């Protein structure tokens, strides 16, 4: 099946973005509305495609569109082609849906910023790039979107780049992403060298003939790409700093959509990973480490956005972990991705709403008791909270529960280990989210001077409300009747694997609920009463380490930045002194020998005659020697 409409999904927001940028201040008055309408229209197109897809029989649900031949050199042929299948449509709806809500929210949130038009241009650009990422029919097309969202993220993190640390945060994000891009580049090279193709279909056709080494290598490189984009260990450090961007950006890019692109990549590359068990194991391990890492960091964060960012990292860890379990896990990874998109976006917007009411204060130690002053925000946020910690029947319960179950089902010691880690993650998640709730909406008022908390305007709370509905209902909708599993099976589970059960589902569910109860309880005990306005300073070494993000920045600095800077300085000096020095030495040695040889030119006739005589004698002897 082909469709002529896919291109508009990308072209419209791209056009809008370019228009708003090129028109400049002339578009200030209407730019935000235009951009929002464009975003909404992409959602409409996406929805139409979705309904059209549902109407088609399962075998022909995927549609493609070839735009033009992009690169064609010898056997290397890449079309600018789009592919909309069951996997991509899920993303399209999430991106355009959540994206549009956040556009709406931003109209109000950014209303005081004189660069609002530019902000909307960036947002539209992001939508275009993210849609290209999920619609591209080959790794190379995906790559374009992949870097496009990276650029959008860079621009939006650095939206207020007049603050040097924000600019640094933007750069850090881009560079970490580039490390991931290295993986993606190499993966494409491996694909071309092995299969002579870079399109998903082209590779999938030939994947059976490839060596496991090649597939493992490619898988690991794809994992590296995912790790960079999705802030997984060890490239997780940029995400916390990325909260420098305006809060809607954190909601859209650094929670709901872009950072989940790694999950998309792994799921999309299922045909590679399914044949590369080593790479899969690596995926699971990375996911597991990250889900714990993020959760642990989240425990000690006082910055509301950074706490949410740590949570995002942890939740994506769940998704990555799930996608590492192969056909058993892909659907649940995507499911968690979707539910997470709702509740985390909702919570971020909630955090933005709180900040909006608190003069952009982000420190939770200066919040407290806000539930009374911001009722809508506290309710929508609360629903998101219930969803994320996995309280039945909220969305997160279904998706996370399934991931924990899949982890246990991996079997053997590995299954127990991963399953327990996932459970532990659930405990910690419940702890830090409860802490966040208590510190923000309950307890004593610890506001800064002049704070007058108030509820946000309609344009802001309306999107939060919509997302809250999603946080409540999306889990059940996706799960009931294994809807998501069946929907995605043609893409990620073509052979309809039988999945074994290690523990009966009811046991896992019980365990998960218990985990939540434990986490919530601890947090209640610890943060129930009144808190001080500043974080306690007499704390254990563990707390300090956790406050320093488990030393992630220190490690990066120690392992990469410092040596890198040293190397750079060394090379700069080497270039100056050794290489250019050698060149200059050639010059000065020529001059030196010139000065030396000049000394022969004494000015004394007798010396000149001596030179002649010696020359004659040497020549004579040489000639005699040559001849005889």
């Amino acid at each position: 099946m082909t469709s002529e409409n896919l291109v508009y999904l990308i072209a419209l927001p791209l056009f809008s973005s370019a228009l708003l940028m090129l028109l400049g201040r002339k578009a200030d008055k209407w730019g935000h509305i235009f951009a929002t309408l464009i975003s909404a229209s992409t959602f409409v197109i996406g929805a139409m495609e979705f309904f059209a897809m549902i109407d088609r029989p399962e075998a022909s649900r995927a549609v493609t569109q070839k735009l033009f031949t992009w690169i064609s050199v010898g056997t290397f042929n890449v079309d600018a082609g789009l592919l909309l299948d069951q996997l991509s449509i899920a993303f399209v709806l999430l991106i355009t849906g959540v994206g549009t809500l956040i556009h709406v929210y931003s109209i109000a949130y950014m209303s005081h910023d004189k660069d609002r038009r530019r902000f909307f241009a960036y947002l539209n650009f992001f939508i275009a790039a993210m849609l290209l990422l999920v619609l591209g029919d080959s790794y190379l097309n995906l790559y374009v979107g992949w870097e496009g969202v990276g650029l959008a993220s860079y621009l939006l993190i650095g939206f207020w780049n007049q603050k040097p640390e924000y600019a640094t945060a933007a750069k850090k994000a881009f560079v970490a992403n580039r490390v991931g891009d290295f993986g993606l580049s190499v993966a494409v090279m491996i694909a071309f060298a092995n299969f002579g193709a870079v399109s998903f279909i082209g590779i999938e056709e030939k994947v059976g003939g490839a060596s496991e080494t090649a597939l493992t290598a490619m898988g690991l490189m794809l994992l590296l790409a995912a790790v960079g984009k999705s802030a997984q260990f060890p490239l997780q450090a940029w995400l916390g700093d990325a909260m420098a961007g305006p809060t809607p950006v954190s909601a859209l890019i650094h929670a709901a959509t872009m950072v989940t692109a790694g999950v998309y990549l792994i799921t999309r590359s299922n045909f590679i990973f399914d044949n590369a068990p080593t790479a899969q194991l690596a995926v699971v391990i990375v996911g597991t480490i990250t889900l714990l890492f993020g959760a642990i960091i989240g425990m000690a964060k006082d910055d509301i956005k950074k706490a949410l960012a740590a949570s995002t990292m942890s939740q994506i860890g769940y998704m990555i972990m799930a996608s590492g379990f192969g056909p058993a896990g892909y659907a649940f990874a995507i499911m968690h991705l979707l539910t997470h998109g709702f509740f985390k976006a909702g919570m971020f917007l909630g955090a933005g709403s709180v900040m909006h009411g608190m003069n952009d204060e982000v420190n939770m130690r200066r919040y407290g008791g806000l539930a009374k002053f911001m009722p809508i925000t506290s309710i929508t946020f609360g629903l998101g909270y219930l969803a994320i910690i996995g309280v039945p029947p909220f969305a997160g319960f279904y998706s996370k529960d399934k991931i924990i179950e899949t982890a246990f089902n991996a079997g053997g010691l590995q299954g127990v280990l991963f399953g327990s880690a996932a459970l532990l993650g659930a405990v910690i998640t419940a702890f830090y989210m409860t802490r966040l709730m208590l510190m923000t909406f309950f307890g004593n008022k610890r506001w800064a001077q002049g704070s007058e908390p108030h509820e946000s305007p309609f344009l802001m709370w309306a999107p939060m409300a919509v997302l809250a509905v999603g946080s409540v209902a999306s889990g059940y909708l996706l799960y009931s009747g294994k809807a998501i599993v069946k929907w995605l099976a043609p893409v990620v589970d073509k052979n309809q694997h039988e999945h074994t059960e290690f523990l009966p589902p009811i046991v896992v569910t019980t365990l998960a609920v218990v985990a939540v109860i434990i986490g919530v309880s601890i947090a209640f005990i610890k943060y129930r009463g009144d808190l001080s306005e500043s974080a306690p300073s007499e704390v254990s070494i563990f707390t300090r380490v956790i406050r320093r993000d488990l030393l992630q920045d220190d490690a990066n600095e120690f392992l990469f930045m410092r040596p890198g800077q040293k190397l750079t300085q060394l090379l700069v000096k080497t270039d100056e002194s050794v290489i250019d020095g050698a060149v200059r030495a050639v010059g000065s040695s020529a001059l030196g020998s010139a000065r030396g040889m000049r000394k022969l030119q004494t000015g004394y006739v007798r010396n000149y005659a001596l030179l002649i005589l010696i020359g004659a004698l040497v020549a004579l002897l040489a000639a005699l020697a040559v001849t005889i």
Partner: protein
Amino acid sequence: MNPTNYLYLSAILFSIGAVGVIVRKNAIVVFMCIELMLNAANLAFVTFAKINGNLEGQVMAFFTMVVAACEVVVGLAIIVTIFRSRRSASVDDASLLSR
């Protein structure tokens, strides 16, 4: 007598002249040494004429003498001029041009 001995003599004379140019400082003496070298060459010519049994070498010797005479004229002119300017006939004094 073996004519080769004249060649040895010629070579010795030439060498004395050649070394003399290098060791002596007075321009006139240097010039004399050069004349000695020319005459050594002349001796060689004459000897070779004898050895080869033709006259060309001897003719050459005459030419050389004439040319040497011309050289003396030119040479003395130069040396005298420079002596008048410098009040010295030492070749080592004439070393302003160097390096």
